[in-house]
């Protein structure tokens, strides 16, 4: 299988002259096509930074990042924009929905940007509406939605253009347990049926247990990783909790 993500020796340093803080150090990461990878770690461990680098929203200080075989560091601003909307679907922690557009229009955004014919756009929303349970709210505005509905809308928008890679930043962070389970089921469905490659940052061991592999970050370095293999979700959940206990201070973050 092909590698969707390949990073070698990626380092990210914030700040300039004098006050410098290192967010990521020497990250080597490979994600294969069809994997559902979770990234965990305490606050400040560099999870979101890594995700932003992969989403091309942020630039690394040094190292190599290849997504779907393309080196993203040498791209121009224009190429990056095109890359972002064609190859990547991003589910943001704070939804990133435009409050001036209806749910349907928000979901349509990536398709409209790549100038998809309207018939095709209608068809795809129709397809996705039931999968994410948003048919009833298509004509509503984001301000009229609950957190779960917003998160599902954001997820729908991330996958509508059938990107090679879906990046999710704490997608269940703001959800009640029922909504969280629904969303995770949807993501798992995408991964299993549509062979979508998913990379998800999360605090939540329960959410991580849906993944096929979980990476643990600490102080900007890859700490360890867990592979689910043939284990059940419950068994994998326990293993994740065990690793989190090793973090010590990280226990608080689990809850």
């Amino acid at each position, binding site marked *: 299988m092909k590698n969707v993500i390949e990073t070698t020796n990626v380092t990210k340093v914030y700040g300039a002259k004098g006050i410098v803080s290192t967010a990521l150090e020497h990250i080597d990461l490979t994600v294969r096509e069809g994997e559902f990878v979770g990234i965990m770690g305490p606050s400040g461990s560099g999870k979101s930074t890594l995700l932003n680098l992969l989403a091309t929203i942020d630039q690394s200080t040094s190292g190599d990042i290849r997504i779907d075989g393309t080196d993203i560091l040498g791209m121009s601003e224009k190429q990056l924009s095109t890359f972002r909307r064609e190859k990547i679907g991003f589910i943001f922690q704070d939804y990133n929905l435009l409050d001036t557009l209806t749910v349907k229009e928000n979901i349509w955004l990536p398709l*409209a940007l790549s100038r998809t014919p309207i018939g095709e756009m209608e068809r795809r929303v129709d397809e996705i509406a039931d999968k994410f349970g948003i048919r009833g709210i298509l004509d509503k505005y984001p301000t009229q939605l609950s957190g779960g509905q917003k998160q599902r809308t954001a997820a729908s928008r991330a996958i509508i253009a059938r990107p090679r890679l879906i990046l999710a930043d704490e997608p269940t962070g703001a959800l009640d347990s029922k909504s969280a389970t629904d969303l995770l089921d949807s993501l798992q469905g995408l991964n299993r049926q549509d062979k979508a490659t998913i990379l998800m940052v999360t605090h939540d061991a329960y959410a991580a247990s849906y993944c096929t592999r979980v990476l643990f970050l600490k102080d900007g370095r890859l700490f360890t990783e867990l592979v689910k293999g043939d284990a059940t979700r419950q068994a994998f959940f326990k293993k994740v909790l065990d690793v989190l206990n090793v973090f010590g201070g990280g226990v608080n973050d689990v809850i």
Partner: protein
Amino acid sequence: MTLFSVARKNIAGNFKSYLLYLVSMVFSIVIYFTFVSLQYSTEIASAIQSSRGVQSIFLQASILLILFAAVFIWYSSSFFNRRRKKEIGLYSLLGVRKRTIGWMMFYENMIMGALALAVGIVIGALLSKLFTLMMLRLLDSAVEISFALSPAAIGNTVIVFAILIVVTSIRAYLLIYRFRLIELFQAEKQAESRPKGSPIVAILAVVVLAASYWLILQPIATSQQFSITLLVFMIGVISGTYLLFRFGAVRFLLVLAKNKASYYQGVRFVGAAQLLFRMAGHVRMLTVVSLLSAVTIIAVSIGASAYYEIEREAARTAPFSYAHLSKGDKLDAEIERVITADKEHPIIAKLDIPILGTTADASELAVVPSKFTVQDVPVKLMSAATFNAIADALGRDEQVRLTGLEAAIVQPLDTDHASDDYVGRSITLKQAGEDRNVTFGRFIDERVMNWSFPDLIVVVSEELYGEFARQSAPAIYKAYKVEDERSARATSEALLGLDAKEAELTVHYAEYRGILEAGGVNLFVLGFLGLVFMAATGSIIYFKQLTEAQSDSSRYAILRNIGVSRREISISIAMQSLFVFGLPLAVGILHSALFLQVLMNFNLIGKEATIPIVMSIAAYAIIYTGYYGLTVQSCRRIVEA
């Protein structure tokens, strides 16, 4: 630490955010002070002979400016206060008493006001010299300008703005009392929603506007009727424009959205949705801007067309450089000597114009001069040959050829008489022998000689003129055309100093100066007001767009994350601003064009005013476009930051 010093530190610390408010205050003070300085300027007073009329123009304009300053300062202070609600809320949350916060806000506003007043007067003093120069140039007058400040102007400005500043300071004091704490923290979240555009109301708006213009074009009998018509017209235009934006513009955007196949291509629909979302909040601003634009264009056009007409009007009033009635050889010779002595203005043409005075029965004419009985109106007879000689001397191509009882008429000065009022009609010229009934075949709208009442100049054939000339001797007018007549000041004064009351002496230079002064002052005052209104409208949109760019920047960040390129966002901003700028400009120009047409219909501005009107509109559009460019540039910077 005293409250006063906290207020002072606040201003020093957040100077950048205070700057915008300060600049708008300084701006209105500069404008007002500049204008008042001109009003009290001795240089200008000395350049204008008819200073009482001019003083009243200035006074009315300065009242208008006070109104403007009040509205503008009020507007910018509420803009400023809105941005500070959260900060005030924080003080309150930290346990500062409302009274203390109120006083702090009061002091702040007072300090800023005093600062603005000082800066404004200094800048205004410099600017007023510049404007004095410009105005004297318009008046074609060479006066040395001193750099003295007028104490009366400073006093006037300080009093007016001290009142305004105290009022806004009291308003700032009361801000904390007007809201509950929770509301202060919600300051930025104002409910906006997508409006619906009713097509029926949009059509109604057009109907209201059309009816208003139809109404004002109706003939008006009494002045009382006129003020009622004008009031109804204003209400109609304001409400029609409001409804047009409120429903018409929304409708336009919704219609765009109807064609889904093209609407949902690229980032365009995001911009359209944003505009739609904002429309309810925009309508009032769009209405104000379009009407202010119209007022500005109309004011400048009136001034410009009057100024543009000066030379023509002078040429109509006094077609020759000098002209007088021959009253004996001695006076004639003396006048000629003075004119010939002026070597800088050599004579181009010298002409004797014989005119026969008689009376006529003008009962067939549509219009006759008042004060005379229709059967006995004095007319001036001129032979066709004389007319042609005058046309030659004045460098015109127009020639007449008349035989028998054919005649031509010269348009009486300052009337709206047209060809239809004369051509085909006849009058009966009276003489000792047989009366002659002549028929007008031509109407001449260029002047041939100086005005005297009643102004009926009838051009007749050689034979007929000869017949009348045998009965009585003609009066001889002596006319001179000299080079560069508009600068012949010394000769003009010398001639006017002669004892020549009987000779009906007309001097082109004197007529020209009189018209120029009135026209120059009008153009200046109207142009100045136009500039102020222009700046005001531009600033209103500018500030509004900037505030919106600030609250939109998070939306653009989202779009960037999804994969919209910087260029696409730039274009989107430019398109949205184009809508907000272009719509009121188009409506404003339309209003001004229609209203100027109304003025033309009532002969309040000349028919030849098209060129100055087009130039005024073009000048306005160019400056306005500059504002547009500036706004787009600033919005881009805010969004990209």
